[in-house]
């Protein structure tokens, strides 16, 4: 792929009933970068995340994901309302019907975007390895007949899936817990397992929703180096929401600052640190809090 930007978000608008959560948000994410989305509480960071990972259907604007073989419009694959122009263009109409029936957030993942969740969502009553195998659902041999007959080619893809699972377990240092139930792991381990699970879908971009929340300083340090491994060794673009400013400034190449549903600043860490608007937003939003950007 030659395009420079893996994710292009243009004039994104999101309304919940009468509440305008996002108001004209525009930014791009460069391929191979580690980018961060920051802002005071209630700025709309998680809403942006949910829009671009396909869990909310944006009210307006465009999200283009330039991954895989061809670019994907995240809003289109979620299934749009029918328009008058569909009457004259049967192809567009059929495409809309297709996405209305079979579309949804899973297509965003298949297009090459994986995510984690702020409140961890693991399959708690399944083992750690099984969590990683489920994530490879689209890669493995899903033929029912091959599976029931346990054919050689089926066994081979299952073995490959297991090897991939154990590879990611090594990366997140969870190999010894492979046969434990995911729900039995500690909080920090669960966060790491969730990242490994998302990586098992072979994404080109991974979105981490507050990955350092609830971690102690040494765990945060380990997380930061893990994120660098994702970028440097696996050419994965990383987009994260984070409140830990130390970590954000340390690992990010590019930072987007949101406040009240609008982008108030974007640029490298140095620019953001000295941006008066950002400082005002933080100081204004949370009075008395000492902000050291």
């Amino acid at each position, binding site marked *: 792929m030659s395009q420079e930007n893996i994710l292009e978000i243009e004039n994104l608008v999101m309304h*919940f009933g009468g509440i305008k959560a996002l108001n004209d948000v525009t930014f791009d994410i460069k391929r191979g970068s580690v980018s961060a989305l920051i802002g005071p509480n209630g700025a709309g960071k*998680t809403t942006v995340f*949910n829009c671009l990972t396909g869990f*909310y259907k944006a009210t307006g604007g465009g999200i283009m994901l330039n991954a895989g073989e061809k670019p994907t419009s995240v809003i289109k694959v979620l299934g749009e309302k029918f328009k008058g122009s569909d009457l004259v263009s049967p192809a567009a109409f059929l495409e809309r019907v297709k996405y209305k029936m079979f579309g949804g957030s899973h297509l965003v993942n298949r297009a090459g975007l994986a995510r984690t*969740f702020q409140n961890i969502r693991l399959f708690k009553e399944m083992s750690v390895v099984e969590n990683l195998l489920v994530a490879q659902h689209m890669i493995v041999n899903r033929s029912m007949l091959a599976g029931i007959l346990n054919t050689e080619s089926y066994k081979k893809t299952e073995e490959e899936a297991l090897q991939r699972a154990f590879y990611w377990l090594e990366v997140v240092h969870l190999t010894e817990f492979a046969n434990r139930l995911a729900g039995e792991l500690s909080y920090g381990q669960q966060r790491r397992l969730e990242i490994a699970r998302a990586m098992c879908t072979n994404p080109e971009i991974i979105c981490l929703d507050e990955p350092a929340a609830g971690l102690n300083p040494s765990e945060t340090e380990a997380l930061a180096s893990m994120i660098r491994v994702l970028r440097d060794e696996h050419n994965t673009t990383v987009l994260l929401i984070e409140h830990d400013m130390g970590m954000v400034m340390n690992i990010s190449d590019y930072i987007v600052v949101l406040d009240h549903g609008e982008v108030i600043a974007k640029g490298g860490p140095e620019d953001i640190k000295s941006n008066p608007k950002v400082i005002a937003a933080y100081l204004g939003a949370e009075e008395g809090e000492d902000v050291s950007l």
Partner: protein
Amino acid sequence: MDIVLQQLVNGLTLGSVYGLIAIGYTMVYGIIGMINFAHGDVYMVSSYLTAIAIALFSFFGLESFPIIIFGTLIFTIIVTGAYGWVIERVAYRPLRNSSRLSVLISAIGMSLILQNYVQISQGARQQGIPTMLTGAIRFDIGDGFVQITYMKLFILFAAFLGMGVLTYIIQKTKLGRMCRATQQDRKMASILGINTDRVISSVFVIGAAMAALAGVLVTLDYGAFDFYVGFIIGIKAFTAAVLGGIGSLPGAMLGGVILGLSEALFAGLISSDYKDVFSFSLLVIILIFRPSGLLGKPEVEKV
């Protein structure tokens, strides 16, 4: 033409009854986010209670219609309300933190218990009550006529009175305020000192009381019932609740009336054997095209 009008009259009374039962579904759904599967059977129990009350009154030699009706209503509503409380205490409260599936299965179990327990204690045969109120108003229209029995007028009056009282309770009283608060956010409500368990119990009791009102009215009108009546009417009332927008009180009543009218028209004009099939298909169609119903708010998924 006269058939259509007659069916509209019948549909309106039927619909108001569906609306009353739908309130039970919609309130419980609003507060704990679950379908109360035993609700149709609560209605069924109230039919039996109606007949028992009438039999008791006539045994003690009371014959005045208003006294019997009034006494039957009070008796049935109180006892059915107790059923509502017991159901919540036994099948719902111990499962407050369990998975949704567990609660659903436990509710189905409760529904089976109620049906079979009534069947064992009262027998499987159909039961009935004597006709209490006769007479009708007739309107001649062209060659045919439309008639509204006094009983149907009474049903309409009582159903809308019941709705009115309920709306007053929910909007104006302290209990209503606590209900609405618990519905918005159960955790926050309990932090603010509301005994949410008690609120949930009262919602079950209110729902059961409304079903009891419906049970008395329908039994007085139709006369016959058995231990199985709660099943179909339960599904219909649920359809009404979904049609109006589950969680919304006026929606339940509106959904009930619309369902009653359309079902009566279908039965009168097309086929009465398949009127249940019609209501059910309506439910599926609503769920596909407008799952939030007419007056409900679309659900926003929490990610």
